[in-house]
């Protein structure tokens, strides 16, 4: 045991190191969130935090659950594949409480031109009008029904 004769001071130093590492591990254990590293170098719970956000758009399946009459009106028209909330806006609050929260009535003179005002950058096949010439300021729903916009007798 001659080789280890003067080793006591080294052991004391090692003990200091071990205690230091232990203290570090304990503090780290408290400070690093439990889910850190669950999937990678990030806090795993962040995923469920982000997923927990409430939705504002109810989704067209939710709308169609109650408004099947509108779905029937839409289904043969050009707007068959336009989702409800594309025009009516985010309506999750209305879907949660249909009695008290009513969607605002829409003004077709403002709404329709958002899509149908003529613009050279729009695809040529998309129906476009220069609203000032087309209706001389009349609201679109004077002639067109927004849910199935073709005028009766006209080609859909």
């Amino acid at each position, binding site marked *: 045991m001659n080789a280890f004769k003067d080793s006591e001071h080294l052991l004391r130093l090692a003990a200091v190191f071990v205690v230091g590492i*232990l203290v570090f591990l304990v503090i780290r254990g408290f400070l690093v969130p439990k889910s850190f590293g669950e999937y990678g170098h990030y806090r795993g719970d*962040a995923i469920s*935090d*982000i*997923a927990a956000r409430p939705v504002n*758009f109810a989704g067209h399946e939710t709308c169609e659950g109650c408004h099947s009459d509108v779905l029937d009106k839409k289904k043969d028209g050009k707007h068959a594949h336009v989702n409800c909330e*594309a025009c009516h806006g*985010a309506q999750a609050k209305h879907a949660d409480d249909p009695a008290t929260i009513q969607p605002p009535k829409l003004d077709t003179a403002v709404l329709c031109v958002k899509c149908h005002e003529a613009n050279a950058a*729009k*695809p040529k096949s998309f129906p476009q009008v220069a609203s000032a010439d087309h209706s001389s300021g009349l609201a679109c729903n004077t002639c067109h029904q927004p849910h199935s916009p073709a005028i009766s007798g006209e080609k859909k």
Partner: protein
Amino acid sequence: MSISRRHMLLLLPTAAVAWKHVLAGTPESAPNYTMSQHWWGMLIDVTKCIGCGNCVRGCQAENDVPDGYFRTWVERYQVTDFDIENPHVDSPDGGIKGFPPVKEEGGKNFFVPKLCNECADSPCTQVCPVGATFISPDGVVLIDKKYCLGCRYCVQACPYGCRFINPASNTAEKCTLCYHRITKGLTTACCESCPTGARQLADLKNPNDPIHEFLKTHSVQVLKPYMATHAKVFYNGLDGSVR
């Protein structure tokens, strides 16, 4: 029983490692949604975009995006016949109020909706010094608001300009691909509010998703493929002048 100091020293690190495992706990699982079964992306059909700005308004309504900042926006390109290398691009207020008529007639005009490209090899997640931004196991690039320092490295790293610093929280923000919606079985707010179907949410791991048939039958491009980001936002009918 007595433990010598040497034995005690040997035991301590082992005990520390064991205790760390106790602290780590068990991971929580979300009901009805398994991350490993999804790999999210998006399909954008440029030939269908009418530049109405519904997606930008929808995103703002869904995600409380601060005014003047955009998680998605629409650009209008005007490519003149003589200078195809330098298209004129505008995006007034991100296209949130639609677009005024084209100033000069002629040339090739079209709209390009943009959003986070949900890169599978994302430059923005690689530069984060604190692990605040990451690619989730279902392929969405997300930001942990609690961890973000607001150092802006990721804002600079994104080749598509999709990130910004939220002036209220001073943390980085970006499109989450409406992660709170897609995990509930809904589509994104921009897809929900797009009137022409120019945007389609795509689950690349779902064999029944129409994206697979579309990718087989169309010539589909991603933005800046030379950056090798393996973007998962696919563009159909994309013009070569789009940056």
